[in-house]
């Protein structure tokens, strides 16, 4: 009895850990406690099955461990035979990944088989994910009350994989290819067809990348981007820079080349790879520009050692000045604008806004916050958690209710993805609506945005350059996959016309959006970058 219960808890712990790892940064994947419960159920069930199959030997611990530990070497086989990629070195680095993947798959099994399978189909491209999807598919099936049968299959599969994972892979590929036309080609909105990313091509890209030496940290980062584990342009750029630091540290210049040349090449590969995982954010491109600029400054005959030190310093400075200090400056400026008993309305989750609100609160300004949230990511919930935790008085509504709640608001604070040269604000989808309604109730709209997010790009609508969300999250796949006339569509970003924005708060000053180009001209770093 004692033994048993211990195992249960064990299983729980494992799951919770996985869930926790996943949870960071991606609020749509914030697996709240009760979810975790579900996972526990899922896994528990599996364990029990396992026990049954393994003649009920009470040591679920072993089995469950097995199922955990399987993954990495599974993957090694998988990759080995498929695309001659020496994995052994990376084995360890993938451990975390897999575990977090497990929890992802769990999440999917929540949303039904179809979902599981489809996401599986779409992103077979990405080997690491594939594994997770494989599991997800299986879990999904289990969920569908076919526990025992699948279990057997699973075991068979396992066996197969262990001996000849090649077959497995082929099977997989065939399955994948003949599904493709059905799933991808039909369901495209004409207006956005240029934004759909053809997964087969994507796959190849990534594969080629993997063949060329890409740093394991980068691979990991890529996955984290792709699975929206890391979101928010600040977070993404910080993550990128930290990863690059590792890359730099591990970079050895080939004999014939000199450092900057060689590394620029590496940098290029890295970016293409990351871009394939998820289109890079403006903040990232700016950061890279900056880095390239520093590379170009390096003298040709510089030793790796010095170069690495120089670059690392440069990066640290960038993070410090462009992100942290800038954030601080903005906080101070906005604090002046928040007065006692104000009601601040904000949308989604921007790390900067969070910082502003919490700091202003700690300074002792008494104010209420209205958090507006919306699909696809429902990030607002995460902001809500954090604000409530630090004791702010919050109201939580969905985007559709904003016109009702807006009357109460005194100011609207919005985060931004980028500020374009024509003064338009590129931000998470929905911001424009908030601004629009705010205007119709005469509520001033402040966009908070560090200058490192300013971009030379010019854009007037949400069509030419944008990113599409995962349609499954909008609507259960089995409802529309079969129906050629129905296409769910989710835009990730949109551009808010400058006439809807009262002011932009940057670390330099509070400006009208129209003066973005001026800033770009004045600001030393960015000017030298271009």
């Amino acid at each position, binding site marked *: 009895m004692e033994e048993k219960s211990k195992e249960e808890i064990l299983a729980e712990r494992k799951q919770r850990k996985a869930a926790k790892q996943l949870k960071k940064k991606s609020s749509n994947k914030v697996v709240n406690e009760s979810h975790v419960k579900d996972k526990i159920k899922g896994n528990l069930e599996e364990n029990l099955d396992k026990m049954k199959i393994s003649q009920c030997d009470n040591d679920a611990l072993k089995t469950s461990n097995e199922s955990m530990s399987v993954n990495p070497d599974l993957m090694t086989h998988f990759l080995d035979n498929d695309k001659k990629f020496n994995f052994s070195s990376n084995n360890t680095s993938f451990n975390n990944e897999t575990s977090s993947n497990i929890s992802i798959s769990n999440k999917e099994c929540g949303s039904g088989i179809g979902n599981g399978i489809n996401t599986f189909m779409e992103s077979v491209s990405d080997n690491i994910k594939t594994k997770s999807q494989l599991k997800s598919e299986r879990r999904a099936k289990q969920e569908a009350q076919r526990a025992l049968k699948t279990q057997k299959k699973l075991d068979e599969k396992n066996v197969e994989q262990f001996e000849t994972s090649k077959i497995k892979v082929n099977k997989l590929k065939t399955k994948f290819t003949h599904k493709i036309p059905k799933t991808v080609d039909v369901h495209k909105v004409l207006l956005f067809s240029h934004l759909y990313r053809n997964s087969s091509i994507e796959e190849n890209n990534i594969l080629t990348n993997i063949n060329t030496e890409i740093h394991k940290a980068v691979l990991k980062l890529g996955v984290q981007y792709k699975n929206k584990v890391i979101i928010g342009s600040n977070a993404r750029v910080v993550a990128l820079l930290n990863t690059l630091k590792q890359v730099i540290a591990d970079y050895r210049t080939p004999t014939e080349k000199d450092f900057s040349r060689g590394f620029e090449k590496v940098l290029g590969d890295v970016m293409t790879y990351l871009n394939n995982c998820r289109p890079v954010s403006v903040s990232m491109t700016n950061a890279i520009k900056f880095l390239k600029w520093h590379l170009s400054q390096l003298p040709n005959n510089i030793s790796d050692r010095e170069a690495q030190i120089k670059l690392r310093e440069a990066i640290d400075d960038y993070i410090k000045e462009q992100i942290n200090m800038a954030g601080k400056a903005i906080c101070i400026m906005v604090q002046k604008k928040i007065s006692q008993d104000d009601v601040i309305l904000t949308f989604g989750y921007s790390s900067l806004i969070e910082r502003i609100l919490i700091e202003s609160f700690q300074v002792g300004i008494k104010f209420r916050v209205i958090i507006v949230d919306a699909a696809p990511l429902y990030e607002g919930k995460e902001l809500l958690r954090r604000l*409530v935790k630090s004791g702010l008085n*919050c109201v*939580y509504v*969905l985007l559709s209710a904003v016109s*009702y709640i807006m009357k109460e608001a005194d100011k609207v604070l919005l985060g931004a993805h980028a500020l374009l040269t024509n003064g338009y604000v590129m931000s998470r989808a*929905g911001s424009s609506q908030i601004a629009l309604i705010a205007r119709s109730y005469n509520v001033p709209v402040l966009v908070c945005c560090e200058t490192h997010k300013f971009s030379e790009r010019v854009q007037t609508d949400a069509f030419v350059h944008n990113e599409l969300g995962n349609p499954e999250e909008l609507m259960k796949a089995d409802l529309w996959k079969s*129906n050629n006339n129905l296409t769910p569509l989710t835009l990730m970003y949109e551009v808010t016309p400058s006439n809807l924005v009262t002011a932009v708060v940057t670390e330099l000053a509070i400006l009208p959006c129209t003066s973005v180009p001026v800033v770009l001209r004045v600001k030393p770093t960015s000017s030298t970058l271009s």
Partner: protein
Amino acid sequence: MPRVKIYQFYLIKTSILNYREVDGSYNVAVAVVNLFKNLVTQEKWNTAKDLINLIKTCGKLLVKELPLQTSAENMIRRMLKIVRDEYTTACHEQEELDIQESLHKIVTSEEEIDDYSKTVAELKDSILDHISEFHMELETSIENITKEAIKHIHTSEIILTIGKSAIVEAFLKEAAKHRKFEVIVCECSPLNYGHNTAISLSQSKIPTTLITDSSIFGIMGRVHKVIIGTHTVMANGGLRAVCGTHSVALAAKYYSVPVIVLAGLYKLSSQYLISHEDKFNQFISPESVLKYSEGILTSLVHVYNPTFDYVPPELVTLFISNAGGHAPSYVYRLLSEMYHQDDNDL
């Protein structure tokens, strides 16, 4: 109070149909009309005055039973109006039917403050006829509106709609028989009525795109027309429509896309917007916004889940009702034809 009991018996029927549903106001309207038909036939009353009181008492109960259904309220008013009309016509044939307060009336009125207490021959029959007449009108209303479809949708248009509305669906499907065009549907979370619309449209071979509420503004730039239903048309031509409609209308205004509202006359209410909460909006359980199982969070935050948006008349381009198309400013006229002022508050 034994009389009340009797009406309650009728009410049981209606009170059961969608207690919490916000949509399906048409069914409610029909149900209510039938209800009152029974009432008129089966109840014992001598003068129009009796009947009016009867209907009012019953109406009050009904409104209490169906808090979300303004169409029920409208129908009650309509019934009263019918009674009054029949009465006045019966009393003095020569007099024109307009018994509204009007300048003209002020000027010409004699002393007669008619309290509908005269007994009139076969008033009952005439009223019943009139009611069944009206019943017909109701039943045909949707089809009358859909008739207009091809006049408003041209080939390869992109049309945006929000939420779920029987009329809009019928309208688009009708148009689809003759024209080829695309429809974009906003899902309109948290209740996601949009999903059903999208599915049913796509099933009748209309290329449909389902978008999140957050994408509305982004996509509006390429939309040619916004065609929406509404829950209620308010006396000033404003809308009381499903949540999110206001943003749609504003976005449409921003890109100067015409907004066409489909509404059967039974959706016209004599209500004005006074406050956004009381008597106007309905706040349903926050569950769909923030799960109760989110735990402690729910007890620390205020979560609002309103059902309706108010859309001011200046954002509406055109109303299409079973009486044809009208500008928002004309709603007032329709109203004065349909309801009697004394019934504005039941």
